[in-house]
């Protein structure tokens, strides 16, 4: 749906009012379009000493054809308006070196262009060589989360922690965070581990892959199906028979196949497996998107209301994941993606059932991530914040308006923002990305 306030702020009168009254000034966020470069502006790179990670980052910047300069070349004083600032902080062996953050960013941060990108790359603190390094690396989180709230005009700030010797896994993640695909992902921390080196064609990273998307008929699910198909995947769209027409519209536009069933049905896992095996020879990507809300305060909660939400949002993903793994339908090297919610992280009044289910999805990720590593199957989750869908359009006006504005980008996200994040997880090149829960919330203040 349209954000009327945001539209108004783009008018001359709106701009005047916004400036004089100090009202929220949400910058329209550009989204990635097919054929567009990863980043359409200069990149400034900085680091703490020379590291393997730094070399890997610079190799990537060259690879994507970005015009980049290093801080040492005195870019900060030039008239260049950088589109992205990338800082390699893996070299911070102690807190003393944290001053490099201030030295690098303070002069240049004001120059950052609209919808700019700030990416800080650090060493996964838990895997640091010394306590001093761990402390310094852990400190980065406070820096990026604060800077995320400071940068203006639709810019985002994200932190990527890399495990030792995992710098070869950075490629797909940096591409994602540099590009407009991560438009609504802000203030997030991603952990990258080691993994096999998988090269994918960036224009069709999911070519030859089969993706299952539950709840694919509408809203975020439809956007996920379209985005995965855009990236080359064959999509199996699942939804309940009630949504047959909407599902057909989605699937007929992207190819793939439809499967009409209720994910909570006792035989849903078996049916999904049989369909995938029979029509597509198995699965590579599973996106547990189907979800419902039945909001009630706990005192007024009915048993069936509670059960319905838990069944669809948590038990179904749990049962389907278990069966697809056990039956071998999900191929080794595959990717499982859950859809959590900021309610599952922050909690929400009237959503004990929903938040329980969505926190459970995080549990699903954490429980399976280590277990699936040997099969090189990755499992991650997105946690959407306020996304503009039919569901949020039904939220009462005042609550909806608050939901939209209480984040660093001062606007709601689009279904495609969630979909792009999922496509990044699904990319076989993201082999080192597992066990992550990434919020797509514009750095919402809730549960941050």
């Amino acid at each position, binding site marked *: 749906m349209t954000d009327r306030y945001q539209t108004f702020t783009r008018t001359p009168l709106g701009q005047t009012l916004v400036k004089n009254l100090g009202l929220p000034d949400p910058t329209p966020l550009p989204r990635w379009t097919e054929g567009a470069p990863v980043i359409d502006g200069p990149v400034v790179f900085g680091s703490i000493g020379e590291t393997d990670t730094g070399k890997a980052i610079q190799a990537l910047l060259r690879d994507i054809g970005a015009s980049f300069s290093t801080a040492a070349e005195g870019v900060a004083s030039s008239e260049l308006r950088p589109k992205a600032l990338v800082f390699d902080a893996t070299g911070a062996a102690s807190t003393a070196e944290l001053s490099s953050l201030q030295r690098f960013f303070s002069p240049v941060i004001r120059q950052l262009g609209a919808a700019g990108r700030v990416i800080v790359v650090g060493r996964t603190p838990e895997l640091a060589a010394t306590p001093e390094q761990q402390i310094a690396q852990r400190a980065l989180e406070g820096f990026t989360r604060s800077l995320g709230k400071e940068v203006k005009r639709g810019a985002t700030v994200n932190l990527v922690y890399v495990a030792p010797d995992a710098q070869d896994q950075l490629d797909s993640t940096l591409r994602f965070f540099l590009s407009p695909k991560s438009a609504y992902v802000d203030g997030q921390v991603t952990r990258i581990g080691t993994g096999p080196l998988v090269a994918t064609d960036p224009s069709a990273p999911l070519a030859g892959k089969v993706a299952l998307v539950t709840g694919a008929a509408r809203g975020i699910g439809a956007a996920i199906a379209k985005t995965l198909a855009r990236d080359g995947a064959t999509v199996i769209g699942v939804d*309940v*028979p*009630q949504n*047959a*027409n909407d599902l*057909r519209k989605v699937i007929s536009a992207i190819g793939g196949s439809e499967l*009409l*069933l*209720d994910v*909570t*049905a*006792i*035989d849903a896992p*078996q*049916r999904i497996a*049989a369909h995938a095996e029979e029509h597509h020879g198995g699965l590579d990507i599973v996106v547990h998107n189907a979800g419902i809300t039945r909001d009630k305060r706990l005192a007024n909660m009915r048993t*069936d209301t509670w*059960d*319905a939400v838990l069944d669809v949002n948590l038990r179904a993903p749990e049962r389907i994941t278990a069966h697809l793994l056990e039956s071998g339908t999900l191929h080794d090297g595959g990717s499982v993606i859950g859809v959590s919610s900021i309610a599952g992280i922050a909690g929400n009044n009237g959503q004990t059932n929903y938040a329980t289910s969505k926190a459970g999805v995080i549990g699903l990720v954490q429980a399976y991530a280590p277990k699936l590593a040997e099969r090189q199957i990755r499992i991650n989750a997105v946690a959407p914040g306020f996304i503009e869908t039919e569901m949020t359009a039904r939220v009462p006006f005042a609550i909806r308006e608050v939901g939209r504005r209480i984040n660093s980008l001062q606007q709601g996200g689009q279904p495609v923002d969630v979909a792009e994040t999922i496509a990044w997880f699904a990319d076989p090149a993201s082999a080192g990305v597992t066990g992550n829960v990434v919020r797509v919330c514009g750095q919402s203040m809730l549960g941050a």
Partner: protein
Amino acid sequence: MTEPRKVAVVAGNRIPFARQDKNYRHASNSDMLTAALNGLVDRTGLGGEELGEVVAGAVLKHARDWNMVREVVLGSKLAATTPAYDLQQACGTGLEAAILVGNKIALGQIEAGVAGGVDSASDAPIAVNDKLRTILLDLNRAKSFQDRLKVLARVRPKDVVPEIPRNAEPRTRKSMGEHAALTALEWGVTREAQDELAYRSHMNLAASYDRGFHDDLITPYLGLDKDQNLRPDTTIEKLAKLKTVYGKGETATMTAGNSTPLTDGASAVLLSTDEWAAEHGLRPLAYLTHAQTAAVDYVKGAEGLLMAPAYAVPKMLARAGLTLQDFDYYEIHEAFASQVLATLKAWEDPIFCKERLGLDAPLGEIDRAKLNVNGSSLAAGHPFAATGGRIVAALAKQLDENGGGRGLISICAAGGQGVVAILEK
């Protein structure tokens, strides 16, 4: 306790089924059931006879008909000393009545009884709405003229809008057709397959009339001697042209042609022991040997509204020690063509049979040539409670004509229920 006795189906009779608001529009449930019962009494020469009991029911029933079946018996040619009671299990009413009468016979509690059912979609009970009802009851309680005026002053224009019974599930507010449309989608039942089934139903029923099969199963009533819905001249092409009525958009497959129409009608079946039949110069057509009911939780969407027979049949087969293929005839009530086809698909599906029915192997396919050989509800129509009696009588006669064999009856009912039975000879 003594061994259960064999339960013979001795005779059956019904009136032709009429389309809603046609020939039977002014006939009440009692009128129609009396006609069906008297026809049965005439044909079997049981006038003035006292039977063990008459059990029947109607799905759409007027409040005044609280003792309908007993009143029908009193107005019939049976002895006035024949006890009777009303029963209601939605579309399973007629078959459930036969099962209950059969059980009493098997246990030696009665020697013979009639099971039946009736429904009128035309003479439907219209009720005053709840608010007006409360006001009228209060008016009745009011003592003084002034009090009565006060009560009457509460009536508002909208209160006089009557409540008309809807063919919808109270818990989901979806009509049965809408539920069936969802099941059709889930099982991928195509429009073509549904139209084909509807076509065969009409052709089989027409053929059975042509060979005089119904001559001793039907008593003409109010100008009808054949089911009014029967279209002997229909074609697959004509059926394919009909607009869809349930489901929406391009995924809708259900039409007025492959769904049963609302109909009026009544049926009655005579059941007894072998000895009683012989004493009355009658002979068994077939025996009612097994029965089962089942229900599914359609409210939470765990199962389709009309899928209960898919659960009831395997339970009954297990108890009878039979497989789905051990039958010469299958009478699967055609509430909707899609319902029959989804049920058949479910029985063929290894996942459904394993996960939902807990079976090691699927029940498997049936020989379609043995399905509804004399037509079923799509052609004949479906006055809800009367369908059980129609099927029991026709299958018993078919088994008798065949010189023996075994037939399966399967009827789905509102509320996610299913009633199934086996007739053998």
